[in-house]
């Protein structure tokens, strides 16, 4: 196998270019290197101006999501070896305005995330002296898969609807709303439903399903959205048949 590999990076330096262009770098090939290691090599040895996000290097922080050969992937969890002989193309994630090089602006996601109150909502807080809110293993299992979300934005990048309809609240936000809805300690289901059941919420999703395919943590946002649709429809039918009943 070759001792080097070509990395083609999508560069965008607003002071230099009005739109992105490709730049190639020759990087040593190491069997144990990830794509992120190759980018770090470029930054340390070839071009210190290359800009990208990364932090933990172990698939937990969700910072280093990029398009690698067109696929949304965590670059810290993608071996160079699996992409040989190259060239390997690295681009910023789709769906987000590019600030610089491989960095997208995530402000839209953060604003939408806040709308669904991604925290445990209580009507009445129990006093600390009364102890913890206990949960059974079954209650934990009900939401645990959704709690695995690391906000890496790969699902947004894979979702064509998010890019075509920017008002769509998006897969991770809905999955994170479900994370709290299924939590036995939470009482905020109705408040979240008011946000999620709008046209910009679950009904914008056309079930492409790629969000679940690319999720590195098997969160299944597409499933979360479909389950929300079932529940919203059931609530609507119930309100039609029994308008006096509490939602």
């Amino acid at each position, binding site marked *: 196998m070759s001792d080097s590999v070509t990395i083609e990076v999508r560069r*965008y330096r*607003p*002071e*230099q*270019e*009005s*739109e*992105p262009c490709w730049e190639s770098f020759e990087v040593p090939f190491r069997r144990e290197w990830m794509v992120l290691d190759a980018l770090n090599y470029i930054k340390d040895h070839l071009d210190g101006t290359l800009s990208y996000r990364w932090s933990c290097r172990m698939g937990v922080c969700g910072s280093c999501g990029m398009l690698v050969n*067109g696929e949304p992937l965590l670059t810290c969890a993608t071996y160079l070896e699996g992409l040989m002989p190259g060239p390997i193309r690295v681009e910023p994630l*789709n769906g987000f*305005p*590019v*600030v*610089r090089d491989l960095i997208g*602006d995530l402000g839209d996601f953060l604003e939408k995330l806040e709308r669904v109150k991604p925290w445990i909502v209580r009507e009445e807080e129990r006093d600390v002296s009364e102890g913890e809110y206990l949960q059974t293993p*079954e209650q934990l299992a009900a939401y645990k898969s959704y709690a695995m979300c690391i906000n890496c934005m790969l699902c947004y990048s894979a979702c*064509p609807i998010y*890019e*075509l309809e920017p008002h769509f609240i998006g897969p991770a936000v809905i999955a994170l709303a479900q994370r709290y809805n299924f939590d036995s300690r939470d009482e905020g289901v109705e408040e979240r439903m008011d946000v999620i059941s709008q046209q910009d919420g679950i009904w914008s999703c*056309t*079930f*492409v*399903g*790629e969000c*679940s*395919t690319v999720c590195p943590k098997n969160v*299944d946002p*597409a*499933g979360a959205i*479909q*389950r929300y*649709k*079932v529940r919203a429809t059931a609530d609507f039918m119930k309100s039609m048949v029994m308008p006096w009943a509490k939602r």
Partner: protein
Amino acid sequence: MGQALNPDHTPYHPKWYRRRIPIFWWLSKRGYVKFITRELTSPFVVYAVLLLLVQVGALARGQPAYQRVEDWLGRGPVVAWHAFVLAALVFHSVTWLNLAPSALVLRLRGARVPDGVIRAAHFGAWAACSAMLGWLLLGRV
């Protein structure tokens, strides 16, 4: 600070770049092609329902009316067209039923019913309905 090479650039007013989505974005990935094909085959479901209603309506008007519909259905181009419609309906149905486990999460004695069981139940129900209709239509010939 060096001279900006992009004449539109103004310091401290960064310009975000937003890509233009290509019209054929759905050809970029196998999953997108499958999704679009599933969406495009939806009208055939409507067509099949309307055709059934036409047949039922003709049946209600009596034997001559129903015979006219039957004759039309037996014409070569119509048979070819309906073979294509059937292929589209099968593709739509199979891809749709394969998605059922995502929307339907059932629990039995605390454990989630496996996706394969839910999928098999849907395909089983489909096969049972088709067999019953087949028996009604062909068993009486």
